[in-house]
């Protein structure tokens, strides 16, 4: 695929779209959670207000340049990730790096942030980061199996081609239901919603990684969090829900429509996990490992076997 004008425009728009949507989604999530708890909740735009307030703080404190670098890395990583996932059927840059590359790009932000938090010297942040990494170990096993099933099913590791293959409502969720369920369960931990919010755990380790971050620094982390939510839920949409590409044809209008559908589907996936979040407590670390390496892994294995058997039928 060549570098068309659309690619350039989307490459600049993608981070902005993800940024705006992320804060909106978080605002909606706060409202929904409040309603589950029978509260009224903050206005939907509260997240924008919070971030603006944090960036507008007159003073913030830092423990040194590594903490600055951590805050920067978190945002850099998530912007790169936003550039490498297709948005509304438009590949942006994802034809230049496939799912395996994306899987590693997704790690830049958390590892960068881990560096920044570690340098603060607060044990709470180190505990939070170690929990986050352990959680990653738990959910990556079923999630990797899901990725492999999708890749083997469509015989390509390119996310853009996977989205293309799901055109005209041949969504992967219908073809690979077991994998989709396993992926959604993994998404819960990826988004850091309860019962898998151990890395943050405000009541235990004082918000974990964020504990030493205030003002502008916390603002950077909140930007990262908001964007990461859209990227991760959007990844699920791209893998299983056709990537929002429902309007065919070239031009600006179908593209805008597709982006809109992609955002709505992403919001739906995010709200599913918010609803689960609203009614659950928190697992212990060992419990989440046992959970993820149990039932979801079994589901993902069934999904994988399903794909392999399916492929064999195609061959013979």
């Amino acid at each position: 695929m060549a570098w068309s004008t659309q690619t350039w425009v989307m490459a600049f728009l993608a981070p902005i779209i993800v940024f705006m949507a992320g804060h909106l989604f978080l605002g909606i999530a706060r409202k929904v959670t409040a309603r589950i708890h029978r509260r009224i909740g903050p206005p939907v735009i509260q997240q924008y207000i919070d971030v603006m307030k944090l960036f507008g703080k007159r003073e913030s404190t830092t423990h040194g340049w590594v903490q600055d670098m951590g805050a920067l890395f978190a945002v850099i990583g998530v912007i790169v990730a936003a550039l490498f996932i297709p948005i509304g059927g438009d590949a942006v840059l994802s034809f230049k790096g496939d799912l395996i590359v994306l899987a590693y790009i997704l790690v830049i932000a958390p590892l960068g942030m881990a560096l920044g938090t570690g340098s603060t010297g607060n044990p709470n942040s180190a505990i939070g980061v170690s929990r986050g990494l352990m959680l990653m170990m738990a959910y990556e096993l079923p999630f990797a199996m899901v990725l492999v099933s999708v890749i083997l099913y469509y015989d390509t590791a390119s996310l853009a081609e996977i989205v293309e293959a799901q055109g005209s409502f041949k969504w992967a969720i219908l073809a690979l239901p077991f994998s989709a369920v396993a992926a959604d369960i993994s998404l819960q931990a990826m988004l850091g919603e309860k019962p898998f919010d151990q890395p943050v755990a405000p009541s235990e380790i004082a918000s974990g990684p964020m504990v030493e971050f205030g003002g502008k620094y916390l603002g950077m982390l909140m930007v990262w969090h908001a964007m990461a939510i859209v990227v991760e839920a959007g990844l699920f949409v791209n893998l299983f829900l056709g990537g929002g590409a429902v309007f065919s044809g070239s031009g600006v209008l179908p593209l805008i429509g597709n982006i809109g559908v992609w955002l709505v589907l992403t919001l739906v996936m995010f709200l599913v996990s918010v609803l689960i979040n609203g009614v659950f407590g928190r697992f212990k670390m060992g419990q989440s490992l046992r959970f993820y390496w149990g039932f979801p892994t079994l589901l993902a294995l069934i999904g994988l076997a399903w794909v392999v058997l399916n492929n064999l039928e195609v061959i013979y």
Partner: protein
Amino acid sequence: MVGVFSVEMVLGLLAAGMFISFLTYRIKWVSGLAAFLSSTGAALVIVFMGIFEKIPGNMSELELFDHMSLLFDIDWFSYLFMASIGVIAPLILMYSFQPMKDAARERPFYGLFMLSLIGGIGITIARDLISLFFFWELMTWSALLLIDGKRKGAGRAFKTYLGFGMLSAGGILTMIAMVASTGQGYFFSDVFIALKDGSDAFRIIFLIVGMIAFGSKAGLAPFHIWAPGAYAHASDSFSAFFSGGLSKTGIYGTFLVVDVFIGMGILATYGSWNELTGIGLIIAIFGAVTALIGGVLAMFQDDGKKLLAYSSVSQLGYIFVGIGIGGSVGTAGALYHVLNHTLFKTVLFMGFGAVIYRTGEHRLSRLGGMIHVMPATFWMFLVGIFAAAAIPITSGLASKWLIYEAALEKGIGVMVPILFLASVSAFLYSFRILQGGFMGQLRDEFKDVKEAPLTMMVPMGIIMIALIVFAFIPGAPMELISRAMQDIGMQAPEYSTIELGSGVGTYSGLVVMISTGIGFVIACIMFFAGPLGRKISLRDTFTAGEEPMDRMDRKFHYSWNFYAPYERVLKPYFNRWIDKAWRKLYRGANQVGRLHRTVFNGDVTAYLWLIFVAMIIVGALLWQYGGWF
């Protein structure tokens, strides 16, 4: 006529350096300088050999004794391994100046180092099994003498390494004997013919013996148990070369057995599916298990060097996966990972070695906060960690990506999640060593620690730059790799300087780096728009209202029992049961050995009695069956 850019020149330079370093080992700086200069010369010759394309050279012969001569030649395939071992050697020698200068003991470190370097390079250029064996033993024994740490457990590490060294030596001798039994010569081409003409059982046994001989050197599970101890207890400067450079000879040997001696064509006759040979699949499964075991055990190490050593085992597991899967993408991935691992493991051992040199402490739970006193070392170490964890802003991703793609291309579904898990464990152990060693709070006793000396920083910096540059141009090393693959009869996957491709996807290093640049600009605008943060002291942290006054430095560094929740769950499954199985074998062998001590118990009177009894028996037999004699 010996050309300037030839194998003889490399060996000659190294041998001269070795003799001078051995002779002058009491004058440390002369010894070190001789080793450094000669290995630098050798490295330059190696580099120019590649640039001027003096490859393949001519077969040359070095006569040692009557009827015994060593045979060398070079092709692009062995050049790749020779270059990766030969080029990092001068860097590590430069790095070791300072620690060796300060070491109290006088010992021929540089001489032994050069000897092991000659062994490592000799292995890659040997052209018959006898020469290979000669250099193999040279490397093994000189490395053995450098496992001389003073910490607890060094003795056991020494013995374990010795045991597995004998195992691999025995393996190579068995291979030589097997080839001899066919009446063929010992040239690699003869070995190929011997195996082609041999029976199936002959080939399979040869393969298994070869995998034991060479796999054990590279730390393939279940032969990996020597590696952590040996790497951790070798001299701090030698660990980098041991793990970064010399372990590649095991990989080279495995390639020889699988792709040169036997060949994928013949392996395919034992069952293959989707261009994947059954035997290759078994090797790949062993590799994946090695990667996982190494990674998970690395997570739970408190000794930083041991953590890096287990990580080395894990990374070499990936290479075995690439070898096993084979084909163009898999082999390219394996060879690429050889280059990558050489670079980043060297810089990791160097970086942590610098911390040990300055603090004298190797336990992560006793370190912490080193970024505040050794910031430059931290940066270099960080780039190494990023490469080890395959973060896309270093060259580390390219090779792992190729190995993943190979597995996906061949449709081995379950292999990828295992490798992925091994990769996540790499994130975990990476963070553990960063957090334990460099981040967190600085202990009072390390307040005055200085930055690493310049002779340590320069080699680390060179490797760091290489790791970053290759992230922009992941296709550049493919030039060498594709030539190496042609020499073992394979076609490299499609690539351009900035982009790698496989049957299922693409990875464009330049685009990833450019988009990282875009992200950097946006993040910087957001970050630097407002006023900068006010710097506060390290102890000025949120403590939920509590104020622990006593021993604050100890309490406030979270690094002990780091992944305790998972240790509780995972340790029973990964609890070094392979080590225990080997130990059981050792005890069994010991008991058998002890049986013979009941007869040969070292008592001279008993021996006299034995001789007396034996004489009576022999006499009786002679008397009865005298006609026989």
